[in-house]
């Protein structure tokens, strides 16, 4: 990790912004998540929102209830104590993924003038600049290890995903030169070192690789597994892609509509030290827990 000291700054008179590190790393994400959990547990008077992000976090407070200098001192104290935690209890979820689907392909073709490589599809471009011999080899790497939900946001319920591999194996792709004005709902996107699932239809700048038939946000809360809360993902969840074809896509979509579909999910404990000691072994155990 590049930095040991976090950077504190105020976002106006209502937000405390804490940058754990300038660069993305699992360690920075873990620290952000554990400090946010500790702040939540501390039940600080006047705190209205706690937002963990990839390598930073934000606390919204009411300065009529707690002075800005007091919230800063309180969070610094909590950060100093929370540092040690490298283990979290979390969930692992399987997400069916239909790559190179007709809908995102149609959309990306409409916006070729905003792309770095108008003569290739987004996934062909991503495979090439990451030095994979073929799209299939690229997809094998993309789906070959789990991903952390390192942040939820931008729009309602959208997960940012960080691949659980050593940095040298991480995929990196630039965003579109100019953002698109349209992205199908449930598009599987990628930009910088982050994957995402677009929870709603709308503008977007991430490269488009495919689509999932599994809704992740439902403001009506009619989808069976979104009746407790309208957003599926929480920061700290672990996601595994399950590649499917058109037939698999249609059948899951029908199951979702009939209220029969239940995401495959398991409770797991993740240990960062064990992961850093043996990346593939730790990932294998996570998958075993999912399929147990």
């Amino acid at each position, binding site marked *: 990790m*590049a930095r040991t000291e976090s950077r504190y*700054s*105020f*976002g*106006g*008179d*209502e*937000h405390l*912004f804490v*940058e754990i*590190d*300038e*660069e*993305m*790393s699992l360690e920075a994400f873990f620290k952000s998540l554990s400090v946010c959990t500790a702040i939540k547990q501390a039940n600080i008077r006047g705190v*209205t*929102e*706690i*937002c*963990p*992000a*990839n*390598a*930073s*976090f*934000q606390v*919204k407070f009411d*300065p*009529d209830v707690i002075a*800005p200098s007091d919230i800063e001192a309180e969070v610094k104290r909590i950060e100093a104590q929370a540092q040690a935690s490298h283990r979290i209890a979390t969930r692992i979820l399987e997400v069916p993924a239909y790559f190179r689907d007709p809908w995102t392909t149609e959309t990306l073709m409409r916006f070729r003038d905003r792309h770095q490589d108008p003569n290739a599809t987004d996934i062909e471009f991503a495979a090439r600049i990451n030095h994979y011999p073929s799209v299939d080899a690229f997809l094998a790497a993309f789906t070959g290890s789990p991903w952390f939900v390192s*942040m*939820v*946001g*931008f*729009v*309602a*319920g*959208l997960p*940012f995903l960080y691949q659980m591999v050593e*940095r040298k194996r991480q995929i*990196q792709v*630039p*965003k579109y030169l100019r953002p698109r004005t349209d992205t199908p709902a449930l598009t599987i996107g990628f*930009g*910088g*070192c*982050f994957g995402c699932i677009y*929870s*709603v239809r*709308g503008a977007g700048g991430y490269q488009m690789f495919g689509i999932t038939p599994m809704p992740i*946000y439902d*403001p009506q809360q009619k989808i069976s597994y979104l009746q407790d809360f*309208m*957003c599926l*993902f*929480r*920061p700290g969840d672990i996601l595994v892609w399950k590649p499917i074809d058109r037939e698999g896509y249609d059948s899951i979509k029908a199951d979702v509509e009939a209220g029969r579909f239940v995401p495959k999910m398991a409770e797991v404990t993740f240990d960062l030290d064990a992961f850093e000691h043996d990346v593939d072994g730790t990932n294998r155990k996570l998958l075993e827990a999912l399929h147990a």
Partner: protein
Amino acid sequence: MLEVVRPGLATTVQDLGRPGYYHVGIPISGAMDRLAARTANLLVGNPEDAALLECPFMGPELRFEDARTVAVTGADIAPKVNGEPRPLWTSFRVEKGDTLSFDFLKKGARIYIAISGGIDVPVVLGSRSTYALGALGGFKGRKLEAGDLLPLGAGAGAAEGRSVPEHLRRMPEMPAKLRVMPGLYWHRLTEEAKQSFFEDTWKVAPEADRIGYRFRGGRPLTFVPREQPFGAGSDPSNIVDAAYPYGSIQVPGGTEPIALHRDAVSGGGYMMLGTVISADMDLIGQLQPHTPTRFVPCDMAEALRARAERRKLLDAIRAHLAA
């Protein structure tokens, strides 16, 4: 029931917002000019956080199915009942079958229409506010359309003729002044850019909505050169995606500052140079496209003083209407 005859441009149901879900990307929403919204509710005898209509740049046409007390605050868009003018910032009666319509916009950007009893749409995650991007809350999660029938709550309503005097209303100056606390990724700007941001007069761009207000016309902002951190992206204005404070000003590519507002995208990968102070957020809601705007540097002490003044103003409105 309230019938929407003509919807206006982007009329939505709003209250004071939906705090608590930003960490999953659901923004605070609620009225962009909260002081105007609270005042409108107080004028008709509603609780301050009752749901009302927010209408940008243009008024709707509404038909009433029963007698109600109504008040319109915010922008200068004169209301009319069956074609007869009614004053702004003042409660008036409408009878069964009456039509409320509006003149053209003269000043400001958004009106708030409070109706006694409030708009009785379902409460979703603690609020009746509309978050259109997420199809959440309000009336069917969207802006109003012709033919919509809005449920109204029960409420006798205050008397007509209650009014708030001029000195208790708040509208932007010309040019508009927004106080900004530098911070967040301010250190990414060059000394030149730090100066020019506050020296230049910017103009509100046509992209000015509930998500955010874009400004243009100032000198482009330059960044301190660096090797981009891992995961940040290649543009010098990129950062590793982080949470965006409500009111924060991001500058994609260094060209056009965007101040996020009530339906903010909750996070992303553009550096933010600072945040508009809470006391000035309501003013943004009253800016029309092309309004010349200056950003004024401000520290925490001044931000808290301005916040206290704004609270005093609200207390004065409450006291005036309680008398």
